[in-house]
Each structure stands twice: as structure tokens, then as C-alpha cells.
């Protein structure tokens, strides 16, 4: 599907943020992906046109970064951190349970197009291991059982809340946030007990950083 004129206009808007337009390429590709659910030739051509560079130059960039997909992701992108800490603490088992529950595999979508699975690297949330992501929002401290429950709730169309972040939307909505981060969801609760672990002890014991 060709990229619409209004999307091209938004691409120009992104480019205008930077002293040099080409700096906008990564967020522009996110925008293209939010329109098309993957990086298509049309998406690449639109970026190239707006920035006045060749499609080959855009392709070289798009293929370098793992978040850009060359096949349709479908409704939800599901990530499971299988880097050492999460993997060994249970992420490996979470992964197996999700493969079984969805019928999808690494970097492939489930037959019904609902879920695209990916073994992801460290998500900067190791304190909350094992970590799963839904459309890149945090699902912290999952078990094989709770991870499958998330999938089942999404399948039933129920509202699912990220553990630190907003209610889950879909993959394309998140990709749009990456291009236009002012998405009106900044009030989503994002601080949990683990982030407050030290502060709570300090308060109980009257420890402060005010004076050394």
C-alpha cells in the first residue's frame, strides 16, 4: 500500500526537528512501520523521497536495526528476554510456553496473525526478571503461566495493563509512539515496588542523601 500524502507530511514534520533532515530517518522508519505493520518497499521509497536520498541508502539503514521487520508483524509483538539473566531465571521456560500457546516462533507471526514472537535481548529491566514485552511495553516478573494468561486475555480482546506503562494497544500504535512520543499516555503508572526498594528501606531507617 503506498504511503499516503498525510504520512509523508508527518515524515517532513519529523525531519524538521533536526538541524539535518537525515537524522530523522530512524523515527521516520518507525512511522512507516506504524502505517504498514512492517517495512515495505513503499515505506522505504517514501523515506527516500522525503529525505532526497536513494532507496538503497534507506534500505541499508532499515536492515541494520532489529526493530524494523521485513514481514508483517500482525496485531501484537511479543518479546521474551532470553539474555543470560532473564533466560536462566525462567525466561527460557516463558519462551517455550509462548511458542506453544501461540504457534509462532522467533521473528515469525502466529498463523492467525495475532502474535509475533521474538527472543529479545536485555530490556534494561533485569531487576524484574523474567521480562516479557507486549508491543514493547513492560510485562515484568512473568511466569510461563502468567505469560500465557496475557496472551489469552489479548485474544479475548480484554484490556491488559502493562506492569510499568499504559494499557496495551497494538504494535502499530507503539510504532507511532516511537515517531511521535507525545502520545498522551505519560500518566501511565511506571514506578513499582522494585524501583522503590532502596527508598523504602532508607525511609524506614531514616537514611537520607540530604547530608553526608
Amino acid at each position: 500500500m503506498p504511503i499516503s500524502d498525510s504520512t509523508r507530511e508527518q515524515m517532513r514534520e519529523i525531519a524538521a526537528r533536526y538541524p539535518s533532515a537525515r537524522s530523522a530517518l530512524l523515527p521516520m522508519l518507525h512511522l512507516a512501520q506504524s502505517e504498514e505493520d512492517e517495512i515495505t518497499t513503499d515505506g522505504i521509497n517514501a523515506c527516500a523521497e522525503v529525505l532526497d536520498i536513494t532507496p538503497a541508502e534507506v534500505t541499508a539503514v532499515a536492515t541494520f536495526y532489529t526493530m524494523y521487520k521485513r514481514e508483517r508483524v500482525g496485531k501484537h509483538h511479543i518479546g521474551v528476554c532470553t539474555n543470560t539473566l532473564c533466560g536462566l531465571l525462567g525466561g527460557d521456560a516463558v519462551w517455550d510456553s509462548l511458542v506453544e500457546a501461540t504457534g509462532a516462533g522467533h521473528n515469525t507471526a502466529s498463523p492467525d496473525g495475532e502474535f509475533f514472537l521474538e527472543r529479545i535481548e536485555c530490556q534494561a529491566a533485569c531487576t524484574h526478571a523474567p521480562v516479557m514485552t507486549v508491543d514493547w511495553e513492560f510485562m515484568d516478573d512473568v511466569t510461563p503461566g502468567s505469560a500465557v494468561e496475557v496472551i489469552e486475555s489479548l485474544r479475548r480482546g480484554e484490556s491488559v495493563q502493562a506492569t510499568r506503562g499504559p494499557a496495551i494497544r497494538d504494535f502499530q500504535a507503539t510504532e507511532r509512539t516511537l515517531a511521535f512520543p507525545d502520545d498522551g499516555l505519560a500518566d501511565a503508572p511506571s514506578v513499582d515496588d522494585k524501583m522503590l526498594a532502596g527508598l523504602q528501606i532508607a525511609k524506614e531507617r531514616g537514611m537520607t542523601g540530604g547530608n553526608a
Partner: protein
Amino acid sequence: MSTPLTPVITEFWDRPDLYTLDGYRAVGGYRALERALTMDPDDIIAQVKDSGLRGRGGAGFPTGMKWGFVPQGDGKPHYLVVNADESEPGACKDIPIMMANPHALVEGVIIASYAIRANHAFIYIRGEVPNAIRKVEFAVKQAKEAGLIGSNIQGSGFDLDVVVHSGAGAYICGEETALLDSLEGYRGQPRLKPPFPAVAGLYASPTVINNVETIANVPYIVDRGVEWFRGFGTEKSPGFKVFAVSGHVKRPGIYEAPLGITMRELLDYAGGMRDGSEVKFWIPGGSSVPMLTPEHLDLPLTYESMAEAGTMLGTGTPMVFDQTTSVVKAVTRWLEFYKHESCGKCTPCREGTYWITGVLEKFEHGHGQEQEMETLTSLCSQISGRSFCALGDAAATPYPAAMKYFRDEFLAATHTSADEQFDPVASYVFAGAAAR
């Protein structure tokens, strides 16, 4: 007496409105900026220099010195770039800072930009964490609306634009020169140094690149002063650190404490090891620094003491593993990561990570051969110091460090797989039915 915790950056994280301008202002936010704007920019650089603040991105480079490298009066635009790519395995402190206290970062960005005379700042956040991106964007937007970012800020004559930039999934973009290429819209591959970014960085202009936590320290230093800051930590490692403790501990989480606290003390705050378990090995700050063992638990967590112990403080986010953990499996998994993230620019790292991973996977499956332990050592030494950037050195780190303490386990992996040596289920943090 044990070292007390010192919540500074984390002090008000339990305020639900801290992420808003009003919430942040209610606890003294933007007071430092007000003061900074009345100061000579050089005096701010001097203050940060005197504080002894060292970069929290991993290398511990003195921040004030880095700012001082930017040539002044050169007629070129200057840039500040915040490295918020946090992708190092084990590192999980910048993302929490941005989600909980984004205005501390934004205030730091404005002050740092003023000090180095940058009229443009960029916050490069890894794309995989939209919730940090939207929080920081919201903070920037509010700061703009309040006239704290824009033209002639608070009547000071200082103009600043701040752009929040989304990455797209590449660990290498945390390397500062790869980050610059990425921010210019190219593949994220490292650049040759020199020239250093302070001289020729973004758009070939003088650029300071700092970590999120480094910049978030700045408002507190400007507000409370050098003496207060130096009241924490040691002579060579002054200040406090947002430590993030993960692994087989009872209460993994964020613990802000002075540099110089020991791992045993941090572990104690984290509730100790989970029931019936003991420390097998731990890593002070990311998979790129060598592992340590229980005998190192009483060393102060400072840049200098970690270096003496043959490792590095790194990101200051200790991962602690207990006796259920297979070292062979842990190291193999880390190497799979480096292989995946190698940018491919130079041969030792691109080919070396491929070969090391292949050999390690044989060991993980119990098919290693004894002489291949030598092969691995030699592969690592051919990558280390011979690669174009520090990712190569990092990839060559886990295996030799593990061999130093756990040679027997690799030897056993010549006939017994990692999963037979160590039941994977025992390592899980959930048990019984949940583990299935």
C-alpha cells in the same frame, strides 16, 4: 557500621506526580537551573570538574574534564547528546530514572547545554522502551511550555532546543560514536577516534556525550554544591550511584548508595540471597566486565577498587547468580548476545564472536573438547585489543573471567551438558506449578 543508603536521584520516586513539572518543582526541581543561568558557563564546568563526577555509562570518565575538552569560541555549533541506549546486559538503571524522574534528566540537559554552549541537545533513547521515551518527551514538552527550554530561557539570552530521539534496536548504538552515526540517520557503526566527539562529533561539530545518570547528577551538584557531593564516596569515586541489583536475591531492585558501599552491604539491603542459596558469582556492572566470586563481596564498589580486583564498576548494576547457575550456559548466552550485536565493521569481532559462540555452544551441549578450551582462550586474545571498538573487547571478557574461577565446569562440559550439570528449573525464580 554499615554504609547507609543515600536516596538523592531516587529520593522522591514514591511521589506519583514526580514525573510532572509541578511534582518535580514541589521537591526543589529547577532550582539548580535558576542558579546555573546566573553563573558563568565556565564556572559550571569547573564545579562539575571539582565535584569529581565520573561518567555512569560504564567507563567512569571524569565528566567535567570531558566538558572542558569542548573548544569554546570556535564559532561552530555545539551539541549535547544524552546516551539513553541502555542495552548492556544487566544494566537497568537509566530506564527507571527516565520513567520515575525524567525532569532530573531534563534539568541536567539544560544545565549541561548551557555550560558547554550547546543550543541543541538530543536524548537518544533505545526504541524498545516506549514508556521511557514518552515520559521524557512529556517532561521536555512541559519544560518547553514553562519556558525552561526554548529561546532566551528565563531572560538569560540562552537558547536551547531539545529533541527526544527513538533508536531502533542495536546495542552497538550505545557506543558513543556509533550512536552519533545512528543519530545522523545511518547504520550505527563506530567511528575512528581521534578525532574525539568533543572536537568533531555530531555533524562534525564539538559534541559532549553523556550517560543518563551522569546528567541526572548535575542538577543536584549545582544545587547542593561540591562539598556536599564529595561527602559521599571516595576521593577517586565521589558521589552516589543508582545501583540496580538483580538475580537470585530476595529483593531485586534499585538501591541508591554512596560509591564505596560493598556488594555484601548491597546484598544485605536486597534481603540477601533467596532461601537456601548462596552467591556463586556476581558481576558488578554489565556483562562486559569480568565476573567476581564470593571472596570479593567485601570490596568497596568504586572505580578504583573494582579495577584492582581485575574487573570494572561498569554500569554499577550488579547481577548476582547462585549455585544453581551453570557458568558455561551463562557465558554462552552472553556470547550469543555479542555475536548478535557485533556491527560487522571489523573482522576480529565479527568473525571472532561467531567462532567463540560456536565452540561455546558445543560445551553447553556437553560436546566440548579439552583442547578447545585453549582455542577459546586464543580466540579471545585475538579479539581483545585488536577490535575497532570496545564491543569486541567486551565479547572477549566473559570466557577468560569464567575460566579463572570455574575451569572445572568447562572441563565437565566436555562430557556432560550444562543442563545435566545444573537442572535449569532450579535456577528459575518461580517454582512448582508456575515452572510447569
